[in-house]
């Protein structure tokens, strides 16, 4: 009897117990959520106009709900998410910083959101000024000499950068065969190398987690097109020997590519352009605050030294003598386009808004980011194993070596952290640290948030000693717990299907 009552409560109180189904499961024929203004021209007969390819029926299974149901459905779904607006994401190399809300307003302005890239250039000067100013700012920040804003994300920026390198090598008569990737690199690096038509050659890090100079000297030959270096490394440690690295590469005509994912440690304090970097990409959805949105959109501008400028993707923005801007498509040596239209303009607008808000004071953000990371490092040293002892910049990497002795690993600790109200840090990356806990607080966390995080991590470490089971079976407070990923992969269900009429089973 009582069980029946609870089921009823569960069904009715969806907004409090978060028991929302799929939008398709709320559909009922002829419900509508959207009305169009009446047609002011004669109707056209689809069959007459399109012939046998016209759809005689509506899209099968498409939602049929009302406006309030759509709003409630997605509002309820949103409450199942963690977000920067709610609390800290200590995810290493993701730079989950505050997404300023004014950026959302300016990106939506009529006259900004409404523009079409094929419209006359004289009616696009506002857009060009935005692009030009962003280019200038990013060049100042990176200390590089030319830039493209076209790539849609960091990975696409990496590809663009490697294609630029290839074009340069090709011009010099030898396109070369391989790209060196440190074993601490982010997965997009080797994946990109292959798409660029090169072979991946791994280079092992030394005992300090830095590039092994002796190995580098051996491995750099005239078959090597570039080294893809993340600086600071994915351990959050500055590559001290970058002058030597650059020298070794350049002496054999190879290029130094910098993965700019960790620019949050460098902006305003130094410039990659001074360090011998030939080509680099930036992640605007990291250092430059554009929202992650659950997985994009992002943008991955690529900045280069002058000798690579002729190869930049078309079109290139240029300023004419009369001060107006135009797009230059006549670039014989360009690698071509990497995507249609200009780039993720809406994301570029947000990044510029962020830079304008900070101005020259953007260094303060970098300082606070490094301060937070070091504060957390200092207060968790000894509680968690610190495999690499060099100074940390904006992120710190611990390992689960101490906790492993009690049968608890980094995944378990991460899941328990959820019960304390935080999103997990990055687990199991970089690959050179087995059982890694990669922590990047960013500058957006107050001292209080950092203290809460430190306390939580300390409490969990104590739980590992005193009651490891509670950590191994975490999380305990979420709506769903330890979803079965093995089953999901073994028999993938990747879409909803209407229930079979005969079996009566729910979708």
């Amino acid at each position, binding site marked *: 009897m009582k069980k029946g009552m609870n089921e009823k409560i569960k069904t009715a109180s969806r907004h409090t117990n978060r028991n929302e189904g799929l939008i398709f499961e709320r559909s009922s024929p002829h419900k509508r959520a*959207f009305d*169009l203004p009446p*047609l*002011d*021209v004669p109707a056209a007969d689809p069959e007459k*106009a*399109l012939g046998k*390819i016209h*759809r005689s029926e509506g899209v099968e299974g498409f*939602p*049929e709900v009302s406006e309030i149901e759509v709003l409630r459905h997605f509002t309820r*779904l*949103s409450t199942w*998410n963690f*977000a920067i607006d*709610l609390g800290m994401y200590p995810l290493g190399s993701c730079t*989950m910083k505050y997404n300023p809300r004014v950026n959302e*307003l300016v990106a939506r302005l*009529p006259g*900004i*959101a*409404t523009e079409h890239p*094929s*419209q*006359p250039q004289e*009616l696009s000067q506002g857009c060009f000024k935005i692009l030009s100013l962003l280019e200038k700012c990013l060049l100042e920040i990176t200390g590089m000499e030319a830039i493209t804003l076209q790539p*849609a*994300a960091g990975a696409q920026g990496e590809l663009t950068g490697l294609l630029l390198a290839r074009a340069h090598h090709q011009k010099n008569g030898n396109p070369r065969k391989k790209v060196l990737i440190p074993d601490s690199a982010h997965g997009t690096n*080797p*994946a990109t190398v292959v798409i660029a038509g090169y072979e991946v050659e791994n280079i092992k890090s030394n005992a300090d987690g830095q590039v092994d100079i002796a190995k580098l000297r051996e491995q750099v030959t005239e078959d090597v097109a570039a080294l893809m270096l993340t600086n600071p490394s994915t351990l959050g440690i500055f590559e001290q020997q970058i002058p030597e690295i650059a020298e070794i590469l350049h002496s054999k005509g190879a290029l130094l590519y910098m993965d700019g994912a960790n620019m949050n440690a460098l902006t305003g304090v130094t*410039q990659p352009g001074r*360090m011998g970097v030939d080509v680099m990409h930036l992640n605007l959805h990291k250092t430059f605050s554009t*929202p992650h949105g*659950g*997985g*994009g*959109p992002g943008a991955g501008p690529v900045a280069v030294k002058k000798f690579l400028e002729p190869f930049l993707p078309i079109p290139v923005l240029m300023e004419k003598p009369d001060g107006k801007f135009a797009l230059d498509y006549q670039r014989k040596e360009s690698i071509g386009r990497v*995507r*249609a*239209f200009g780039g993720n303009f809406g*994301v570029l607008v947000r990044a510029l808004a962020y*830079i304008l808000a900070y*101005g020259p004071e953007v260094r*303060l953000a970098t300082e606070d980011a490094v*301060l937070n990371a070091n*504060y957390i490092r200092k207060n968790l040293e000894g509680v968690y194993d610190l495999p690499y002892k060099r*100074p940390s910049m904006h992120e710190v990497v611990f390992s689960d070596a101490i906790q492993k002795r009690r049968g608890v690993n980094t995944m378990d600790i991460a899941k328990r952290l*959820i019960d304390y109200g935080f999103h997990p840090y990055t687990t199991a990356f970089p690959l050179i640290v087995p059982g890694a806990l990669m922590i990047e607080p960013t*500058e957006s966390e107050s*001292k209080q948030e950092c203290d809460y995080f430190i306390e939580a991590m300390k409490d969990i470490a104590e739980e590992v000693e005193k009651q490891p089971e509670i950590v191994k079976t975490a999380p305990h407070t*979420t*709506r*769903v*717990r330890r*979803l*079965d*990923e093995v089953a999901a992969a073994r028999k993938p*269900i*990747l879409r*909803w299907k209407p229930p079979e009429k005969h079996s009566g089973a729910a979708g």
Partner: protein
Amino acid sequence: MRYLPKSPAERQEMLASIGVKSIDELFSSIPEAYRLKEPLKLPGPFSEAEVVQYFEERANENSRGYTSFLGAGIYSHLRSVVTDTILQRGEFLTSYTPYQAEMAQGTLQAIFEFQTLMCQLTGQEVANASMYDGSTATTEAVLMAERLTGRQRVLVARSVHPEYRGVLRTYAKNSGLHVEELPFSATGTLDTNALKSALKDDVCAVVVQSPNFFGAMEELQPVAGMARRAGALLVVAITEALSLGLVKPPEEADIVAMEGQSFGLAPSYGGPFVGVIASREKYVRQMPGRLAGQTTDLEGRRGFVLTLATREQHIRREKATSNICTNQALCALAATVHLSLLGKEGIREMAEQNLAKAQFTLTELEKIPGVKRTFCAPFFNEFTVELPRSVKIVNTELLKSKIIGPYVLGSAYPEITKHALVCVTETTSRKDIERFVGALKDALLVPV
């Protein structure tokens, strides 16, 4: 600075806790020679009001107040305020990629719904969580076909969007793929005789777009048959996704590569948009990008997780099906909300309005002496006309009436000068259509 939640006193406390005297000491690992002695030369700092003012000024230097007849891969459609209301919820806007499923069920379920909607629309069995846009989705579809067939030749119709073909060429140059372009016939669609001659057993993919760049619907059945007999995969690109509200889905396609911008995303000077890849279940392990799958948790509750991750860069690294990491999740959410609002009846009605307005515009244009329709294949909301004089010159005249005229086809297709690609959507009023037709008629009478 308002984005930094620390007081000077707190900074001092933290420095003391670390055991350093100043923040500069924390940067000691950067060689002295590299450390900047001066602040960067950047504009600002701007207060919030100044940030807004800067962009409002730029907004006034663009095309406000003009009526546009441009399509060519980006379409103006009605968007509900509800979509933005959802998108602006911090839990969606500021959340991370859903690797930690317990903390991202909102995002994951929304992706699952997106994947479902894309399958329903395209008639395919599986769709991913998004690619960057239609142009890269098309390219990745071709790379997928290469992996599936082991072949290296690609045949792509010239009636596919010029910028899409450009992206494909850039990617193909370095992957050993040979891309050949096939001409279009007098109907404005793929020349199937040319296809027949070019098809051999070394072709991995035949790429067509429907409606194509000229707005014309391609005849997919014969093309699919030819491709199949040669063992090649048919990739169908779609730039105007709304057409699927009124047109049969391309079930003949092996892979559909679609641009979803028409579903709730503003033109935004070219991006961000949302690419879609949809295909057969048997090809899923070669699909690029993220996939959300349904599963259950410890207590049997339905939930969603990212799945088949062994295809992806963070697991397989150099053996991944693609290098894609950050995709277009928030844009996919916009499309999901938009389509949920439009619904079964709304999407058809919106498509019908597009068809009606385009037909009406063509009828009116054909009344102007010297204006002829070209390419007689059926069209949805874009069509091609030939004018008695240069389209560029006509467009210059139209600007004086605050009208942005049709796309000049001659720029991308030098062999068809004086051809204009006209796009009309449900957002163009009859009044504006009549104004456009009148202005065009006048423009043709202006002495050159």
